[in-house]
């Protein structure tokens, strides 16, 4: 077995794969959340932004990359879950006390992760492959994605479901982002508190940002 293939199949190699793919999507969700804030500015800004992204030919490459990375992350995560379900056949009849136990976020990664994957598919169906309206600004015809978003964000059930999923994604990031540092070996007694704080804040900012948008539309647009 060559060094590289044995590296990738080792439990530590898989940790690296999880962390590296996690970086891509952690950055993506943050950028996506910030970009979506244009919903507050108005229809033209939002549609122009969306048009600028989707009319760039690079978009297909980037989309393919993102999908591949996400699937890779999911499949690698799944192999870890399968291994671990075999290596820990039984837990204890009493729940351990605080520091001898593990956080809820860290224990539910597979569930919050599965929910995220399901949401991404649902989300693409709703918006990317959803009903297409058109609008023209300064003679350029483009998709009126703003209109669709406003429609969706006025459905109470949609908003509620969206908020719940964002909380789950927040949980996933809560354990995941600070975990990236540890996995990549970026650790120093002086900075570890900061890495944790950074990871937790990152998760809260992404989740809160995504939740604020439908709430804003629902109550103020």
């Amino acid at each position, binding site marked *: 077995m060559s*060094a590289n293939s044995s590296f990738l199949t080792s439990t530590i*190699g898989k940790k690296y794969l999880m962390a590296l793919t996690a970086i891509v999507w952690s950055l993506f969700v943050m950028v996506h959340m910030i970009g979506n804030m244009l919903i507050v500015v108005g229809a033209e800004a939002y549609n122009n932004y969306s048009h600028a992204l989707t009319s760039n030919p690079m978009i297909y490459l980037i989309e393919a990359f993102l999908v591949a990375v996400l699937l890779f992350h999911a499949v690698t995560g799944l192999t870890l879950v399968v291994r671990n379900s075999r290596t*820990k056949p039984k837990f204890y009849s009493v729940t351990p*006390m605080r520091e001898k136990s593990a956080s809820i976020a*860290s224990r539910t990664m597979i569930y919050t992760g599965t929910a995220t994957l399901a949401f991404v598919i649902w989300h693409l169906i709703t918006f990317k492959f959803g009903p297409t309206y058109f609008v023209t600004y300064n003679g350029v015809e483009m998709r009126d994605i703003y209109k669709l978003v406003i429609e969706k964000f006025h459905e109470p059930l949609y908003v509620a479901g969206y908020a719940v999923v964002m909380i789950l994604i927040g949980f996933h990031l809560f354990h995941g982002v600070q975990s990236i540092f540890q996995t990549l070996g970026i650790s120093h007694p002086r900075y570890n508190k900061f890495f944790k704080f950074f990871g937790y804040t990152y998760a809260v900012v992404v989740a809160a940002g995504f939740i604020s948008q439908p709430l804003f539309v629902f109550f103020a647009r």
Partner: protein
Amino acid sequence: MKSKSSNTHMTLHLKVWRQKGPHAEGKLCDYELEGVNPDMSFLEMLDILNQKLILKGEEPVAFEHDCREGICGSCSMVIDGNPHGPQKSTTACQLHMRHYRDGQTIVIEPFRAKAFPVMKDLVVDRSAFDRVIQSGGYISVNTGSSPDGNALPIAKEKADLAFDAATCIGCGACVAACRNGAAMLFVSAKVSQLALLPQGQAERSERVAKMVYQMDAEDFGACTNMGSCAGACPKDISLENIARLNREFMRSMVSGRKSYPRGDGANEGSPA
């Protein structure tokens, strides 16, 4: 904590995992134990239980112990879900009954992990750890007269970190606490201790690869950074060691060796 004088005796309700052998079905059995002195250690309390069981003609509870002073790492047991009991930084043998109240129920189970199969009652087979050590947890030295103590300068910070890692007693509580049954904290402590010191440099790259592959060949789980290992570790081995292990493993991969022999120098573990 209410102070108790040594002549106040407690009665405890124990639920102890009883299992006749490796392949037998086990179950929690109830015992009522009177006359427990708060000054006793947890293991002494089990000794009293066993004395009573022997007098009644019953099979005593099998549990591992040796030093009874927190340095050998053999007293593996899970008390109310906590490896080594509820106290932080304390082995089961150093846990005292003054932390319990009269009438309290205590559940005692063996360490649970596929890599640590139950042999009998509370005794598990932790030889998987030995095989990990055999695979690379050593240094090679030239024999001869002992070297001059000051011939090898070691920075104070490095020496401290290496010493902290070296306090790991190989008890396995990290594996027992981990919901993945991962042995990362143990392996990281052993790798760190040697990687930090000049004596460990010769085999540095090979060691980490061999030990990680042996760890994976045993039935240990994959670490997902939950951190309960460090919480349960009676020697407070820190998670920073696992970060160092990850670094060392990556360093070993990029340092240019073409391939790593798997499991040479050590017995292959139970098939993964």
